[in-house]
């Protein structure tokens, strides 16, 4: 058990280390001066440039340069943005919760919708129910996410006028920033019009969450359906039926456990897909999240910001995936062999 945890932690640390290394190398690969790319301060005078060089230890060889960079990164000093001259790390900390919030709600919706549908399709394998659920899900994940969100905006915001088309909340409400999760922030704040603000935030959430979750729901349905079909075709289910267990007993004790736990890591992978799709959706809905910020940084060729944003997003993705794997390992001992890399 401890070995398994150590292995995962090892993988996590090595991966994060590689990501840091990659982001350091990126500063030299990007066009322009490496020093400017690292710090975000366009070197004005020779004196300032010299000071920065000392700070990043660039003249002491690449190894100690990287070591200094690593220390700075861990301390939260990620340089400043070329355009706005604000510290990148603080920007990211402020923006990341908005993206996470969006992806989290979309993930919850896709699990709540996708799980029962996937299980139903798997249980009624090769029936009309299965066929219809499968075709709906196939259609669902063929949608280009940007087109889907545009269509939703066209229909629900422009034609029908039910829902707002951009932003997180109406500008009338001034929400103090504490956690970055807007619903939590509203609930924690001491506002006189809390209910109205909450309702408004929810209305802003509907379209982005919907356009994100449709694609993910489709993927979740397919994953779960396939897993349920495989488990129900296996011998131990037959044995359980032969033993005289009822449908519901087989379903809860043998079917679900074995069908859902092994695909947990794959379900976790969907979160990363979600986060990428969220970047596109954020651009369309002007959602002030990390994706929108990163894409703006690419437009403006703001290299320190691109470097920081890339590091942050991939670190979140990798940490999330590995922690889910570890969780599954704790809950589901059958995976033991895979973790010791025996095949």
């Amino acid at each position, binding site marked *: 058990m401890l070995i398994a945890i150590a292995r995962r932690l090892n993988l996590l640390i090595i991966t994060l280390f590689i990501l840091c290394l990659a982001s350091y190398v990126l500063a030299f690969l990007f066009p322009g001066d490496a020093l400017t790319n690292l710090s975000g301060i366009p070197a004005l005078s020779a004196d300032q440039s010299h000071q920065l060089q000392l700070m990043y230890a660039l003249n002491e060889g690449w190894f100690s340069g990287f070591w200094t960079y690593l220390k700075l990164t861990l301390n939260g000093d990620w340089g400043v943005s070329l355009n706005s001259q604000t510290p990148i790390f603080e920007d990211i900390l402020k923006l990341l919760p908005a993206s996470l919030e969006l992806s989290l709600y979309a993930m919850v919706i896709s699990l709540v919708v996708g799980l029962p549908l996937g299980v139903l399709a798997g249980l009624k394998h090769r029936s009309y129910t299965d066929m219809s659920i499968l075709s709906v899900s196939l259609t669902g994940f063929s949608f*280009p996410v940007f*087109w889907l969100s545009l269509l939703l905006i066209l229909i629900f915001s422009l034609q029908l006028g039910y829902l707002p088309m951009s932003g997180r909340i109406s500008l009338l409400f001034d929400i103090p920033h504490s956690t970055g999760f807007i619903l939590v922030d509203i609930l924690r704040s001491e506002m006189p019009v809390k209910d109205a603000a909450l309702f408004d935030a929810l209305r802003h959430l509907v379209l982005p969450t919907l356009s994100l979750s449709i694609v993910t729901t489709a993927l979740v349905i397919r994953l779960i359906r396939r897993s349920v079909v495989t488990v129900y075709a296996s011998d131990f289910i037959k044995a359980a039926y032969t033993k005289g267990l009822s449908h519901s007993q087989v379903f809860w004790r043998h079917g679900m456990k074995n069908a859902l736990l092994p695909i947990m890591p794959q379900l976790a*992978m969907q979160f990363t897909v979600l986060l990428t799709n969220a970047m596109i959706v954020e651009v369309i809905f002007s959602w002030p999240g990390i994706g929108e910020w990163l894409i703006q940084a690419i437009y403006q060729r703001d290299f320190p910001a691109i470097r920081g944003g890339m590091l942050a997003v991939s670190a979140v993705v990798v940490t999330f995936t590995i922690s889910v794997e570890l969780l599954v390992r704790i809950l589901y001992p059958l995976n033991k062999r895979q973790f010791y890399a025996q095949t």
Partner: protein
Amino acid sequence: MPRPSFYQEEYYPSPMRHTWTDFQRNHIALAGLWCLLFFIVAAFLGPFLVPYGPLQQNTDMLLLAPAWNVNGDISHLFGTDSLGRDILSRIIHGCRITLGTSVILVLIAMLVGCSIGAYAGISRGLRASVINHLLDAIMAIPTLLIAIIIVAILGTGLLNSMWAITLALIPQFIHQTRDLVRREFQKEYIVAARLDGASNHRLLVKDILPNMVEVLVVQATMALSVAILDISALGFLNLGAQSPSPELGTMLSEALDTAYAAPWSVALPGAAIFLMVLSINLVGDGLRTALKNRLLQ
């Protein structure tokens, strides 16, 4: 003397034929195949058939509605955009760019990924474990994110986004091939061939590759749908093909300015992407089911 022919009466289809018969039984997948063929034909022949060029502007007819609308005109079947360009012509040219580049980059990614994957599959020890760990780390990052990072380094443009998506697609091919090669290598027919003195290279090319082709084709269809979605997403974000180009995603982002006045200029290019991806997914799914059925027998 007439020989008894027990075996001639039964017909043993070849594996390829078997898969095809099974595939045909799935009508939805067959419809997907026809739809995909239509797109391929449109991509090849369409540009010679359409009456307007993709960049040809007609200033007398700005934002014309599609022909089925009351305000439409039959001379522009899908209407025109804000610069008076015929949308149907642009979509057909766009299919050529989007589908064509996706096919090319999937082929490149498959070639490179399979070579590395085969190497990873037959290598053992430290080298294999390094490749495995690196792969696990890369596989965790979605392709679009990798593509966006690579585009950030290389700069925007259709060619750069192609490179980016190719590089981003390679890991999944490596993963698939490595697992397959490893699984096949433990089977008895490989052991038999090895006892006959076949080298690793010969085993790979003559024995394992024929067994892998179909799985790789299924994987390639999946990669193709991802590639189309990614290339049009990059185009949409203005990171891929640049503005006057009739790439479908770029067309969509261009149409955004007039989305309220001309919703069809947003809806139609997106519908083309959607149908293309849907047909590819249907074919891929049908192939996968047919293959599974054959292997189960």
